[in-house]
Structures are given as structure tokens and as C-alpha cells.
């Protein structure tokens, strides 16, 4: 009887088949629309609070209004000047500059252009602000007087920088973010070795995040396994212990690690007391990469345990039993049966921890010393201290692109696998 129905289905005419697929698509589409409506509020929320800041950041990383907006006359005059000519701009350009400086000083806007130009070349700030202070008293012709006030105005390279940055959009921030520079002649090249920062930082951020992810997995997997195999009541109690770190502030947790790990800290004291290390040879486990790794592993551990646990909880114990009854040793049963089924948990936990880690900055700032800093610290630094928001935005975009790239790789490698076991 069963065989009959199978055959009957197999006998559909091509027309009927076509209709069937059309029907199927229609019902699927209706499902999709309903799903879309359900997520709409969240979608709007995300658009406003998440996508638009990111769009702003993207924009800021190329936005370059300072020179063109606050030095409009100079910008216009320089448009006629050939930067490769090896000749200083003409008198009209100097006159335009003086006009801009006068206006800029009155409106207190010249500082913005000066700050912007100083990112590209040192001394540019004082060249502009210093000259602006005296610009009011100048009479034409200006060229020689300006060069006398500050010989920077006789330096062709300075004019090249102004011309380059007078366009409303710039790639300078990205060039800087990749440890490169634009020479006065206009070519882009790598910075000298001892001035490169960000690529190394980025690379370090990635590998340390990977290390932290691996460590959380190593520590979290057995714990999750235990939690998932214990009776509900005990598991819930232990779960509270796992979640306990969430209840204390990040700063408190980080500071307590300082107390634990520092030279005169608890762990070193114990090691010295047991004679494992000598008193004047205490291990340095903090204010370096080790400190960052240890502390962040601890802080991010729950983010590994939770997805692992939630996946493991759904693996019935009968699978392991079945494997054992079929003759597998406990180890084989685990590797061949349990592990593959926990892969969705592993990959979810790993990607979560990795993405959280790669953007972290508070903990590295506090315990990372010089070798344990992340790229996030550089971004925070440019946001808060150097106030070079364009560079901060460019670094943010680079980091974002990196995360997206890694995520794409992840879903390529593991996504299909996940689907398999879900199906």
C-alpha cells in the first residue's frame, strides 16, 4: 500500500509538477512575509541604533570637509596649481590663503583645518594658527611676507599636502590605518618599520582572539558537558555559578585579576611560598599578553558555555548509549557521535567569543600592558585621546570588514555542516 502511494507521486505529469512547485513557492513566500512582519519592529530598531551609526562611521572614515570648507579660497586657488610643477603657488594663491586665514581666525574655524592638516604632516597646525594670528596686519603682496613669517610657506611639500587634503573626501585615514603614508610626491608607500602600528595590532588582535576562543572552548566544553549531563536541579545551581561573573561589573572582575596575577599577587605569592619560583624571579602574568589572555578567557567563558550547553542539552543521552551498545569505546562514542552533534554549539560559541574578543578594549587596556593591547584600544585611543575620529572610523571599518570576512568564512566552512545536522 505504501509502495502504491510512492508510485502515484512519481507519476506526476510535467505540468502537474510545475504547478506543484509554483504552489510550494507561493506558500513559502507567504511564510516569509509573515516572518518579515514579525521581525519588523526589531529591524527598525536595529536600523536606527545599529545600522545608522555604522553608516555614520563609514562616512566619517572618508569625510574630509575641514580644508575645503574652512579654506574655500585657497582650495579654489590651489585647484589651478600643478602640484608636480616644483614651483610654489602664485601670488593669487597666497592672497587667497591670507583671506582664509583672516576669516578663519575671526570665526575660530582655522583650528579645525589646522588640526586636520596636522594629522598629515607635523607642524602644519602651528603653521596655520601662528600665521593666522598675524594675517590681519598683512598688506599685499603676500607671498614674501608669508614666507618670512614662517618659512613653512616656502616649502612646496606643505602646499602639496594642503592641495591633497582640500578635496572633500579622502583616503588618507585608510592609508594611515594600513600603516602607509602618502609621500609629498603623491605616491603611497609603507611607513618605515619603526612607525608601523595598526597592521601588527590587527594581526595580534586576531591571533590573541583565536587563542582566547580556543581556551574558552577547552575550558568550557567539559563544563558544558557536565552541566548537560547532570540532573536539572544540580545543573541549574551550577549554571548560576557559571553566570555569576555576569553579575559583577567587568571592571571589578578585571581588577580582581590584577590582584591575583600581579608580581606581588596571590598566585605569585603561592608559587614563591611553595618554592616553585624564587622571590626575585616572580612570573609576570599581567600587564602583558598573558594577562589579557587569562583575564579575557575568564570574562568570555560564559559566552562559550551558554551556547554549548544549550546545544548539548538537546543531545539525548541515548545516542551515547546506542554507540556504546554498538561496541564503541567511551572515547570513540564521544568522538564519533557526541562531538559531531555538539558542533553547532562549538561553532556558535566560538564565533560569539571570537567576535566579542576581537572588539574588546577595556580589559586589554587595564591588564594588557604594551604587549596585550588590541586594535580596539587604538580605536578608543583615537576616539578619546588623539581625537582623530576619521582614523578611528577607518580602523573601525577595517575591523568591521575583518569580522565580516571571518564570519563569511565561518558560514562557508561550518554553515553547511550546521544545516545538515539541523535537517
Amino acid at each position, binding site marked *: 500500500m505504501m509502495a502504491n502511494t510512492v508510485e502515484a507521486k512519481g507519476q506526476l505529469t510535467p505540468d502537474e509538477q510545475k504547478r506543484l512547485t509554483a504552489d510550494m513557492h507561493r506558500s513559502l513566500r507567504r511564510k516569509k512575509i509573515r516572518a518579515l512582519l514579525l521581525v519588523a519592529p526589531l529591524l527598525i530598531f536595529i536600523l536606527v541604533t545599529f545600522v545608522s551609526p555604522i553608516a555614520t562611521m563609514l562616512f566619517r572614515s572618508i569625510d574630509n570637509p575641514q580644508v575645503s570648507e574652512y579654506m574655500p579660497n585657497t582650495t579654489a586657488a590651489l585647484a589651478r596649481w600643478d602640484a608636480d610643477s616644483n614651483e610654489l603657488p602664485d601670488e593669487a594663491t597666497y592672497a587667497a590663503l591670507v583671506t582664509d586665514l583672516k576669516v578663519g581666525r575671526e570665526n575660530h574655524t582655522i583650528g579645525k583645518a589646522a588640526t586636520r592638516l596636522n594629522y598629515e604632516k607635523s607642524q602644519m597646525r602651528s603653521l596655520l594658527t601662528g600665521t593666522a594670528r598675524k594675517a590681519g596686519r598683512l598688506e599685499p603682496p603676500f607671498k614674501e611676507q608669508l614666507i618670512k613669517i614662517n618659512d613653512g610657506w616656502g616649502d612646496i611639500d606643505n602646499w602639496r599636502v594642503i592641495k591633497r587634503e582640500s578635496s572633500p573626501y579622502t583616503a588618507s585615514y585608510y592609508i594611515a590605518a594600513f600603516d602607509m603614508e602618502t609621500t609629498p610626491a603623491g605616491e603611497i608607500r609603507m611607513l618605515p618599520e619603526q612607525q608601523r602600528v595598526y597592521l601588527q595590532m590587527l594581526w595580534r588582535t586576531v591571533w590573541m582572539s583565536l587563542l582566547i576562543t580556543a581556551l574558552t572552548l577547552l575550558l568550557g566544553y567539559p563544563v558544558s558537558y557536565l552541566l548537560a549531563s547532570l540532573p536539572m536541579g544540580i545543573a541549574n545551581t551550577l549554571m548560576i555559578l557559571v553566570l555569576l561573573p555576569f553579575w559583577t561589573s567587568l571592571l571589578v572582575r578585571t581588577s580582581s585579576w590584577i590582584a591575583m596575577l600581579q608580581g606581588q599577587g596571590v598566585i605569585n605569592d603561592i608559587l614563591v611560598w611553595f618554592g616553585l619560583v624564587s622571590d626575585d624571579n616572580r612570573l609576570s602574568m599581567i600587564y602583558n599578553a598573558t594577562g589579557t589572555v587569562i583575564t579575557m578567557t575568564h570574562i568570555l567563558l560564559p559566552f562559550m558555555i551558554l551556547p554549548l550547553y544549550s546545544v548539548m542539552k538537546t543531545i539525548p543521552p541515548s545516542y551515547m548509549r546506542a554507540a556504546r551498545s554498538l561496541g564503541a569505546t567511551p572515547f570513540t562514542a564521544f568522538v564519533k557521535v557526541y562531538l559531531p552533534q555538539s558542533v553547532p554549539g562549538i561553532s556558535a560559541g566560538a564565533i560569539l567569543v571570537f567576535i566579542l574578543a576581537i572588539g574588546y578594549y577595556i580589559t586589554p587596556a587595564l591588564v594588557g600592558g604594551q604587549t596585550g593591547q588590541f586594535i580596539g584600544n587604538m580605536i578608543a585611543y583615537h576616539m578619546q585621546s588623539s581625537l582623530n575620529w576619521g582614523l578611528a572610523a577607518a580602523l573601525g571599518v577595517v575591523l568591521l570588514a575583518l569580522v565580516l570576512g571571518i564570519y563569511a568564512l565561518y558560514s562557508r566552512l561550518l554553515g553547511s555542516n550546521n544545516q*545538515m545536522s539541523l535537517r
Partner: protein
Amino acid sequence: MENSASSEAFVRFEGVQKSYDGKVLVVKDLNIDVPRGEFLTMLGPSGSGKTTSLMMLAGFETATHGNIYLDGRSINNVAPHKRGIGMVFQNYALFPHMTVAENLAFPLKVRNMGKSEIETRVKRALDMVELGSFGDRRPAQLSGGQQQRVAVARALVFEPDLILMDEPLGALDKNLREQMQYEIKHIHERLGVTVVYVTHDQSEALTMSNRIAVFNDGIIQQLAPPTELYEKPTNSFVAQFIGENNKLSGTLQSTQDGICTVRLPTGELVTALDINTDDIGKESTLSLRPERVFLDPVEGQCDNVFTGKVEEVIYLGDHKRVRMNVCGHDEFIVKVPNSTDNKGLQVGGTAPIGWSSKDCRALDPI
């Protein structure tokens, strides 16, 4: 079948007890001998300790007390994977990340079997359960019945001598379940493996088993072949649990040569086989199968004759179930063949009924 062929029991529970919490015994003093090749079913209500017993046999639970022998060897300290016991789980436990063929190959691979050997065996096993073309599917792409058959095939593919099945058909609908019962029984007969089967469906147990162990409250109430269990229950629980049963409670009046007299609360006296009674004057429950009650008995056909009042008639095609009030007991069921003679059966009417004392068993009080 040749149950008695091996004098030595293949599986043997000896005084096995189990407690999970150290307070309550969920299995109390279990003693069973299962000869090689037998199909033994553990039957009992939920929570009676069937799965626990099976798990102790498979090695996933340890017995708190007592010994379990397999082929004459105590296996208390043998790890599950070394026991060589095939097992079919209630939810099948097919590995979802492997195809059907990979599932079947699993027990062979862990035994380091050669590749071609594995292939032929897997194919043979799939053919046996008529799923030859399904090897590349994943379990989730199979129907319940197909999954069930894969689970059976997987338990058999490494040719174990003993197979355990824990309510393997619990998740299937009635038709499919009956079909599968038949198939499993067939496979058992064909291969001659020993099967220990757990179910709480009595008709399933009756159809499939050589012997049935009826569990209640961690104790085997009766261990006997299906016919004996149905025809000759030795206690009220079994009588009530297996098949349909009329029970009449009364006090033991007298007993002689295996025949006793029981007085019902309404005063009537009933003669019955004395199977499991206490002293004279104590309570006893009479057990009587509905199909052994005659309507309008012929003179001399029955030695217990009473008048019943018809309370309800249910038409079931080939027969009618008639609920009557007999001796003040209004749950008394009589099965009446659907013949022209019985057309006049009316609710509210009365009819003489009777049964033979050989069909009525005096058992322990409920």
C-alpha cells in the same frame, strides 16, 4: 520453538535489586532465566522497572545487588561496549549526523571490519528490513516506521547473540505497529537470536513473545508463555492486566480438591478453581474472561448460573459486548456472538447467564 534446547540459561538475572536513590527499590529481587533463542517480553505498567532491568542488562546501570549472567559469565563488571548486545531504543537513537548506511556501518567500523565486508553486511541488513535504496538518506528524512526498521537493522548488523528492545514501537501508529510487530517476530524466527523486549502494550506482548514476564512494582508477577498468562493468570494483577477480565469479590467459603466456593456480598455462592487464595473466611477475587460467559446457558453446560440485567449493549460487528448487572456488580461484561438468536437483547431486560467453574479462578484479593 526449541526453548528447552539449551539447558543453560543464556541470560540470567539472579536476585537483582536496583535503587537509584538508596531509599526505594525500583527493582526488587529479579530472577529470570532466558534460554538461547527465546523472545522474552517484559510487560508492565509505567514505572514498574522494565527499562531499569533492561539497562542493567545492557550495562548502562549497575545492579545495586545480585548478579547478571550472560552465557554463563557474570557481566556485572563488563563495560557496555564489550557485552556484544544489540539494542533498539525507544526513540531509535539513530545518529542524526550520519546517513542510514553510516549508521549501520558504525558498529562494524568500531570492530575494525574491512571496507568491503562492511559494505556487504550493510547492504544485507538494509535488504533485510526492505530499505535497500535508503542508504544515503539521513534519519530525519525517513518516516517513523523506516527509522524503526533502520534501528532494528543497526542492532542486528553486527550479529549479536542478544538483542534488547525498549518499547521500540511506542512511537508508531496502530497499523504500522502491528506490521512491525510481525516483521520483528519474523526476523527473530529467521535469525534465532535471543530477544529481550520491553513493552507496556499487552497485545504486542501476546503476539510476539515466547514468554512474558509481567512486572509490577519492581517484582515479576508471573513469567509464562502468552496462552498460559491469559488462560491461567496466577494472581489478580496479571488477570486484570492481561486481556479483559470480570472480577467479582467475595469471601472464601470452602475449598476442596482445587475447587472452592466463594460467597459474594449479595449472598450468591460461586464455585471456582482455587488458584491463589488465603484461609477460609478471607477475601478473594474471582477472575472470569468475558468470552467464557454464556448467555441462556443450556442445562448442565454451566455450574454457575445467575440472572443478569442488561445495562448497555455495544455493537462491534462480529460480536456484541454486553454490560450487565450480575450479583450487584454492574461492570460485568459478556461477549455475545452476533447471531440471530441474540437479537432480542434489550437494555433493561434480563437474561440468564452462566459459566463453568473451570473457567473461573479464585485469586488473591485486590
